[in-house]
């Protein structure tokens, strides 16, 4: 990802929502702080995941075709840890049973909260990746 003025790497974030106004406004809110990619289907998101290691994937639940939970199953298969944030306006959204849970934000969310949460999730992904790299490097030294 590109380098910010402060010398920190900007987090790569993929936002998936089929509601154009929500997608546009989320893009405007986040684009100053992260390297942002957007798309409107889970299928397109899966294509993008093949070529880019995003730190965070933010997805709506109700999408045409695969839904947000099904997309996150694919995100979990990524070789690098990727944080997942689901946003939904549904009354009765339930986390899938089994497996690792993801973060959920209900629409209409506080925009400031969204920005803060995405940055925190970016840090979580960065730290988990660093710990994994450290573990691998220690494993190599002791073997």
């Amino acid at each position, binding site marked *: 990802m590109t380098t910010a003025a402060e010398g920190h790497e900007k987090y790569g974030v993929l936002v998936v929502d089929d509601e154009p106004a929500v997608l546009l406004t989320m893009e405007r*809110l986040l684009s100053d702080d992260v390297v942002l990619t957007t798309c409107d289907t889970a299928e397109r998101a899966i294509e993008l995941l093949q070529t880019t290691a995003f730190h965070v994937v933010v997805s709506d639940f109700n999408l045409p075709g695969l839904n947000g939970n099904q997309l996150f199953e694919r995100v979990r298969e990524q070789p690098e840890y990727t944080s997942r944030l689901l946003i939904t306006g549904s009354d*009765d959204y339930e986390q899938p049973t089994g497996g690792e849970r993801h973060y959920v934000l209900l629409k*209409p969310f506080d925009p400031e909260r969204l920005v803060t949460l995405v940055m925190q999730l970016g840090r979580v992904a960065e730290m988990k990746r660093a710990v994994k790299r450290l573990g691998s490097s220690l494993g190599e030294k002791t073997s």
Partner: protein
Amino acid sequence: MSDRARTTVDSLRSVELAAVAEEVASVLRHDLRNKLAAIRNAAFYVRRRLAKTEAWTADSRLDEMSDVIQKEANASNELLNQTLTLKHLFARAVARIDARECVRQAIACARIPREPALRVELDAHAGEVDVDPSELTLAIRCLIENAAEAMEGVGVIEVRARSSESHYIVEVADHGPGIAATECALVLKPFHTTKKGHAGLGLNIAARVAQRYRGRVAVGDRPSGASVAIHLQLPDATHAL
């Protein structure tokens, strides 16, 4: 019609009305929350950008108007959330029941043409589930009526119900024109219909009922000769933890 049969039909009617109202309200809440999310995001962005300009400091009404947008958006969301209390108007009576009885009841009450035009073939086995029987009957009835509409009231609907591992599965298969691959993901969307004069809520109501009892409705594998099979799956109560 006997008094008992009339009571059953009346009870199903009230469950159906509650289910339709709940479905419509839920779809509206979802869609309006999307709109409100966009409004809140846009208002926040404009405020964040304008607050750094001279115009913002020079005219206090900008701050005031920005506040109005945010507060009214929040108040609208509160109003939407208040409609959630409507969900509790319908008192559910959940019990452990033999799901086969709901299948039979659904076939008896379904608003479909009867023989000789349309025939329902039933192969149902016993299986215990924890549900409100009126709701499960309604859900299965929706699947049967949907199948009858697909066949334009002529032909054979196959209904199979059985326990399979930890689930009880009701399969409703029809011999209608089938569902195009591109339509499969859409059939469970509210208000989606290819039939003129229909609201497109039947399968959605069935899916919501199934979801309420930790089950699901999906397009499933077709039995030989059938064009579409919809599966309603619920946890088998005898396998519950």
